């Protein structure tokens, strides 16, 4: 068997395939659909001809004309494809059964053309409301098919990005509408669709609708199957097409259906194209047939489609909408609803769009029961659609003929495209229900009423509806009828006008006589009782002349966008706004607007800002912008404060607010663009046009006296918005700032408020209506800067010397330290500390004028100093000119030209600068003195610059106080020839008013705190520098002196003797016991002496050791020495030598033995205590020690007469006490220790473990005193007493010094 070629996509399929594997369309005509739909009055074309239109559609699609052109091009509409013979299609059995039943119920009077639509007749018979659709003219079917194909293509494009398992969500549609069920079919699986009874799934949404009755195919296809009741002229351009597959049954009037509950039944399904059916549609009709067959059959005459006559229209939804189209009899399936749609009024306006949409949301009942079918292959036998007047010549589509004239695909396509947009004449596919257009698809232009229907999307009607082809085809029965203009109700809800102005608002029509409302979906025109639905457009237009309308839901009508120029957007769903149509905001400040104007930089001008005169020339009326708001005349406005009249040098008066310079005409209305343009510099030089370079006036130049009002600060010190170029109303935040500064500039506030960046405390001009004269504070005079001159900008006028403001600006009275009760001289004694040499001070510090006691700090006067920069040597960098020149001016010490005048403000508090900075003095007054170098004239710095003055310079303000040189004093230094140099004389009185943005103290406490801070600040730098090094040196010297004195004293005492110092008279019991123990020893008694002290303590313990040894020597005791310390044996040998020296008769060899070093610490002592002979077998000399006379008869320690432990270490003494004493058996244990260990061993003495204790030098002295032989111990004790006294004196001295220091700190802190 040959392969089955799909009639939709043309892909070959297996012979036994029923569904196309590519497009999932039915490969064969449904049972009973052997006849193609023809246009009314025309015989159905051959199968070959029916396929031609489909082929044309394919061609068009292949060329991508359908998707890009926004609709069907005016090409030849494809012909309705030839239906596949039934014999070639293998249909399932149930379909055959369905067809049999349908055939059995086929009305006898069916025309041959209607035989193709027999299935529809069956459906109508089952429901009782179907009428055989008339034959659909070929051209109309082709149009429908083309539209359906276009939608399908559109859908395919949308689904390209989707996976196999993905699918587009069903488009929103009116429940129960044709598109709704189609959408649901799309959501269902293919198998489900084939299952009988699937249609029950549509019952649920329908149940929600209310009065919407069954999903009757009659209602859905009523326009197709209805017999022609009214003749609707079909436009001649519209070729007759097969009647659309629509139920011809008269849709019942659906009254009061909530729009939300009405499913969208009119939205065309995009996947449905003429001649091509989607998978759901392919099997849908088959299953739908079962449901239809189950119902009572309705014998209806086939709809005789006549050319140019559309089937009867369904009952209009809006009862108030007069309809000239007579409604079809209720017993017959009619297309009255389509007629009603035709008769709907004009599209509603945007205001009433919502009601109309709501009303349109409820589709007619006929549409709810619309059963989708495959698009008809043959556009024959189209039911006549009764479209009144819109598309003359478009025959109605007899529903009864649909089944005979169209294949399933054709009918589906027709039904789905019934609300498709207008397509050109060339494409004459059967109309299909309209669906919301895809974003990429060109928006169709349905009628207004149609557009107003919710969910209606005219994208599915791309190029189809409203086209001439439709009119020629006479597809009147597919789309809802459009009401004539005359039938427009008096107060219908306006349909949303189209958005794109380029696109006409003409609704597309499938049939020339049909004009679908642009703002309403077709369902809304089907006769919903909602009175808000507007009738369709009155005057139908040829489809070809009707542009595609956009979906009103996505594209508000043009009427709603009146006054707004909209730009065409490629995306139909985007509403664009032409910025050019926007009016400038009235809130745009003038100072922004004026940037739109072109500035003319006068090369002769020093300032980069245009002068006020130039700005005043700019007409303010041209801009059309309201002039700047008037400033309060009483207080100086900030706008005038910083207006720089650069043309007039040294003019710091605040200019009048200039009107806003109008922007360019083309951008006048674009506020945002104005701002961007105005703020964007045209050239790099423009970046600096707002920057004023400081100018340094020549020293010999006498700055012209400028009236206070004319003087103005340079532009670069102006506040934003205050500039000469900034005229007009300022923003609120700037105005507030002006107000604050105005307050500060008031005389009252000047005394208390610390000047901020923009306000000088002394620059207030209360009388003048101008703002605070910042120009008075500016002491920097611009000099000719080579760099700026290269730019064509003269800098001599950038800065103006401060004017004499002595009269106009009374000096600001500042509280002095004395007024605050602070006497700095108290804290800064002029005397140097005794013994201290004044540290050399740096030159810069010494150059500072000394602060006189009680003298009120006066403004620092600049002193001529070495000029670092000359006039012509000023750097070219505009940004650094200010600072550099200021320094140069100050270094030169050139007094300002108006030095004699009390300039109101000096930048950085120039009045408090040291002389080398402030060039206040005249010629030769520099402290360092460089007579050969001319002094620089100082200029006044603006207030904001003055506020930035470092805090450390405040001290200089207090330390230097020289009267300002009178005006006219020539500036010395290298900047003699410059004008407007930095004046050394600060305009503002230099006191504790350190420039700070914070307001000055207002209360007494605040003033005191401020004074204290000022004192700290002024005092700190002067004293902090030499303190660290001096302090160290003084401390070292102090201690050297003390130590030296101590040593000298002790040497003297040692030489003289300290016999006058009393020896200890009181002896401790331990000392007495010790003495008594030794004293009571028998002669030749063996005594063990443990010499456990280190050489370091030999000086302390040797006296007692010698004393004891002498006593033992007198006793002729046999003394044995042992030590657990390495140096013990050596010290023992030394002690024996000393004793031998003292008492030569004492035989050391016979009476002494040295057991040497015993290693092991406490363990060794334990061993020694157990068996001393085994532990110490040899002596220190290496000879057996236990054979000596000193150890004769000694086998253990208990055989000794006494054991003496001499140690400075408490642990060693404790070890002897713990390890040896228990083994002694009553042998006295005597311990001689140092003074630090004595207390630690006192408890052992109290417990009786230690019989005698001698501690320290005092003990030795006491022991000697007891012996009656003062020796070394007594001497040491006396010396020790002297050292103790000296230590006590040193300690007391430290206490005194600390107290004195604290006392010194206290007065300064409390003051």
């Amino acid at each position, binding site marked *: 068997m040959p392969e089955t070629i799909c009639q939709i996509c043309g892909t070959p399929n297996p012979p036994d395939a029923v569904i196309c594997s590519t497009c999932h369309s039915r490969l064969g005509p449904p049972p009973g659909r052997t006849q193609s739909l023809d246009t009314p009055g025309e015989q159905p074309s051959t199968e070959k001809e029916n396929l031609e239109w489909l082929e044309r559609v394919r061609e068009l699609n292949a060329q991508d004309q359908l998707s890009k052109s926004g609709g069907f091009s005016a090409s030849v509409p494809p012909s309705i494809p030839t239906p596949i013979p039934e014999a070639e299609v293998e249909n399932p059995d149930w379909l055959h059964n369905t067809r049999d039943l349908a055939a059995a119920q086929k009305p006898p009077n069916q025309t041959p053309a209607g035989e193709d639509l027999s299935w529809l007749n069956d459906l109508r018979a089952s429901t009782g409301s179907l009428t055989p659709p008339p034959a659909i003219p070929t051209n109309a079917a082709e149009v429908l098919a083309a539209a359906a194909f276009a939608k399908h293509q559109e859908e395919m494009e949308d689904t390209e990005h989707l996976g196999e398992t993905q699918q587009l969500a069903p488009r929103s549609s009116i429940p129960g509408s044709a598109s709704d069920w189609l959408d649901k079919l799309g959501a269902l699986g293919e198998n489900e669709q084939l299952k009988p009874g699937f249609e029950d799934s549509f019952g649920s949404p329908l149940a929600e609708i209310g009065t919407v009755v069954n999903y009757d195919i009659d209602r859905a296809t009523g326009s197709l199957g209805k017999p022609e009741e009214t003749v609707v002229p079909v436009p001649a351009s519209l070729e007759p097409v097969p009647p659309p597959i629509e139920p011809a049954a008269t849709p019942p009037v659906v009254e009061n259906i909530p729009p939300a509950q009405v499913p969208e039944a009119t939205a065309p399904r995009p996947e449905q194209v003429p001649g091509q059916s989607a998978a759901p549609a392919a099997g849908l009709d088959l299953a739908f047939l079962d449901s239809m067959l189950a119902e009572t059959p309705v014998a209806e005459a086939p709809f005789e489609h006549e050319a140019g006559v559309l089937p009867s229209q369904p009952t209009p939804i809006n009862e108030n909408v007069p309809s000239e189209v007579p409604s079809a009899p209720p017993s017959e399936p009619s297309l009255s609803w389509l007629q009603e749609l035709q008769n709907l009024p004009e599209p509603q306006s945007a205001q009433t769009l919502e009601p109309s949409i709501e009303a349109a949301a409820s589709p007619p009942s006929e549409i709810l029961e619309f059963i989708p079918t495959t698009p008809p292959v043959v556009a024959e036998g189209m039911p006549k659609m009764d479209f009144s007047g819109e598309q003359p010549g478009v025959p109605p589509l007899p529903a009864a003929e649909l089944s005979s004239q169209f294949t399933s695909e054709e009918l589906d396509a027709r039904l789905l495209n019934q609300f498709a947009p207008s397509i050109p004449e060339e494409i004459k596919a059967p109309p299909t229900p309209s669906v919301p257009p895809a974003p990429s698809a060109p928006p169709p232009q349905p009628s207004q009423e149609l557009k107003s229907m919710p969910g209606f999307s005219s994208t599915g009607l791309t190029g189809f509806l409203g086209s001439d082809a439709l009119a020629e085809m006479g597809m009147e029965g597919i789309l809802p009828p459009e009401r004539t203009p005359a039938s427009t109700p008096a107060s219908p809800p306006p349909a949303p006008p189209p958005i794109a102005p380029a696109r006409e608002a003409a609704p597309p029509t499938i049939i020339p006589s049909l004009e679908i409302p642009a703002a309403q979906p077709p369902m809304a025109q089907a006769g919903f009782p909602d009175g808000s639905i507007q009738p369709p457009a009155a005057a139908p237009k040829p489809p070809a002349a009707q542009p595609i309308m956009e979906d009103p839901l996505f594209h508000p009508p043009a009427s709603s966008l009146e006054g707004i120029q909209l730009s065409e957007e490629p995306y139909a769903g985007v509403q664009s706004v032409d910025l050019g149509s926007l009016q400038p905001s009235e809130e745009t400040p003038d100072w922004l607007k004026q940037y739109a104007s072109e500035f003319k930089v006068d090369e002769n001008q020093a300032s980069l800002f245009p002068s006020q005169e130039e700005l005043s020339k700019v007409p303010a009326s041209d801009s059309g912008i309201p002039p700047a708001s008037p400033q309060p005349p009483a207080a100086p406005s900030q706008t005038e404060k910083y207006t720089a009249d650069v043309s007039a040098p040294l003019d710091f008066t605040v200019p009048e607010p200039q009107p806003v310079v109008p922007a360019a005409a083309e951008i006048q209305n674009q506020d945002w663009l104005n701002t961007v343009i105005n703020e964007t510099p045209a050239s790099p030089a423009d970046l600096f046009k707002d920057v004023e370079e400081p100018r340094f006036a020549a020293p010999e130049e006498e700055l012209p006296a400028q009236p206070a009002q004319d003087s103005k600060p340079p532009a670069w010190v102006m506040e934003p918005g205050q500039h000469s170029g900034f005229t007009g109303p300022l923003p609120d935040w700037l105005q507030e700032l002006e107000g604050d500064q105005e307050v500060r500039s008031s005389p009252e506030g000047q005394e208390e408020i610390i000047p901020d960046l923009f306000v000088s405390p002394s620059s207030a001009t209360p009388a003048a209506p101008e703002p605070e004269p910042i120009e008075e504070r500016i002491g920097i005079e611009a000099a000719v800067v080579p760099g700026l001159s290269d730019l064509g900008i003269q800098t001599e006028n950038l800065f103006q010397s401060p004017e004499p403001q002595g009269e106009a600006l009374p000096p600001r009275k500042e509280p002095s330290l004395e007024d605050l009760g602070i006497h700095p001289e108290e804290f800064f004694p002029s005397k140097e500390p005794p013994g201290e040499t004044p540290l050399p001070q740096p030159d810069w510090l010494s150059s500072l004028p000394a602060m006189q006691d009680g003298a009120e700090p006066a403004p620092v006067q600049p002193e001529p100093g070495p000029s670092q920069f000359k006039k012509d040597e000023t750097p070219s960098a505009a940004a650094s000119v200010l600072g550099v020149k200021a320094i140069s001016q100050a270094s030169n010490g050139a007094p300002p030209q108006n030095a004699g005048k009390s300039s109101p403000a000096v930048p950085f508090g120039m009045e408090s600068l040291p002389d080398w900075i402030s060039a206040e003095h005249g010629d030769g007054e520099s402290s360092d003195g460089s007579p050969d170098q001319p002094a620089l004239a100082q200029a006044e710095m603006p207030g904001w610059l003055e506020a930035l003055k470092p805090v450390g310079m405040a001290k200089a303000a207090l330390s230097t106080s020289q009267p300002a040189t009178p005006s006219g004093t020539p500036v010395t230094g290298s900047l003699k020839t410059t004008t407007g140099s930095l004046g050394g004389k600060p305009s503002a009185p230099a006191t504790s008013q350190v420039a700070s943005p914070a307001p000055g103290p207002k209360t007494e406490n605040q003033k005191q705190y401020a004074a204290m801070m000022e004192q700290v600040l002024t005092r700190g730098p002067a004293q902090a520098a030499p303190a660290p090094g001096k302090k160290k040196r003084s401390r070292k010297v102090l201690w050297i002196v003390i130590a030296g004195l101590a040593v000298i004293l002790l040497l003297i005492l040692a030489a003289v003797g300290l016999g006058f110092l*009393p020896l200890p008279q*009181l002896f401790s019991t331990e000392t007495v016991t010790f003495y008594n123990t030794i004293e009571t020893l028998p002669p030749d008694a063996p005594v063990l002496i443990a010499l456990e002290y280190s050489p370091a303590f030999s000086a302390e313990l040797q006296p007692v050791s010698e004393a004891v040894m002498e006593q033992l020597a007198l006793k002729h005791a046999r003394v044995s020495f042992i030590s657990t310390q390495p140096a013990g044996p050596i010290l023992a040998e030394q002690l024996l030598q000393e004793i031998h020296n003292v008492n030569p008769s004492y035989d050391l060899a016979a009476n002494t033995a040295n057991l040497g070093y015993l290693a092991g610490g406490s363990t060794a002592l334990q061993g020694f205590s157990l068996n001393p002979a085994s532990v110490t077998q040899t002596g220190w000399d290496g000879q057996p020690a236990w054979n000596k006379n000193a150890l004769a008869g000694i086998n253990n320690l208990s055989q000794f007469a006494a054991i003496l432990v001499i140690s400075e270490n408490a642990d060693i003494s404790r070890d002897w006490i713990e390890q040896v004493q228990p083994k002694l058996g009553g042998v006295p244990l005597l311990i001689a220790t140092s003074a630090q260990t004595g*207390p630690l061993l006192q408890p052992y003495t109290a417990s009786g473990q230690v019989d005698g204790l001698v501690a320290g030098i005092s003990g030795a002295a006491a022991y000697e005193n007891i012996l009656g032989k003062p020796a070394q111990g007594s001497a040491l004790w006396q010396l020790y007493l002297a050292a103790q006294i000296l230590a006590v004196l040193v300690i007391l001295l430290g206490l005194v010094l600390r107290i004195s220091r604290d006392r010194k700190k206290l007065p300064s802190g409390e003051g």
Partner: protein
Amino acid sequence: MRSPVAAAIAIAAGVIVLAGYFLPLPLLQVVRLQFLDWAMLLAAVAALVGIINLTVGHFRKAAKPGPSRMFSIVVVTSLLITLVFGVVYGASDSRFAHVVTNIQIPIETTLLGMISISLAYTVFLFVRRRKSWSNSVFIISVVFFLLANSWFLVFGQSIPVLSEIISGIQKIPLAGSRGIMIGIALGSLVTGLRILTGIDRPYSG
């Protein structure tokens, strides 16, 4: 398993020695004495090892350039000289004794004297810089006891009441020292018990 063995040996030895201290068993005494001999021997060897380690360390410092190189050279030189003298002349030789006594004693005595001055200066600075109640108490006590042990209070020794007061004041440091000694004794006891019970194992790695 080194750690348990060492702990067992240490514990056994400590228990034996402690038991032999309380139990006058002959065998126990013999073992105890033997352990003590071995301990003394090991202590001597440990001292020698310490000297060798110190020498080697100073040798390395002397060989490595640095600021403390000279000190290491002096240490090593002194060690070698003393070693040579002791080996040559013997430890009991008077000349060797003179080397030790004439060098070591003056040095250590001087250092000890400087400590006292440093302590006094520290107290002086402590008094000057810090100001608190503890500082004040310390200063007062230092001054008082210096005066009490000095001749300033000598005149009061003949006065009966004052002498008792002075003697009582002189005994105040003894009370503090007694408390310190008790603490030391208790600490030593606890340390010994910890070693005997194996809680502290300073010998194990």
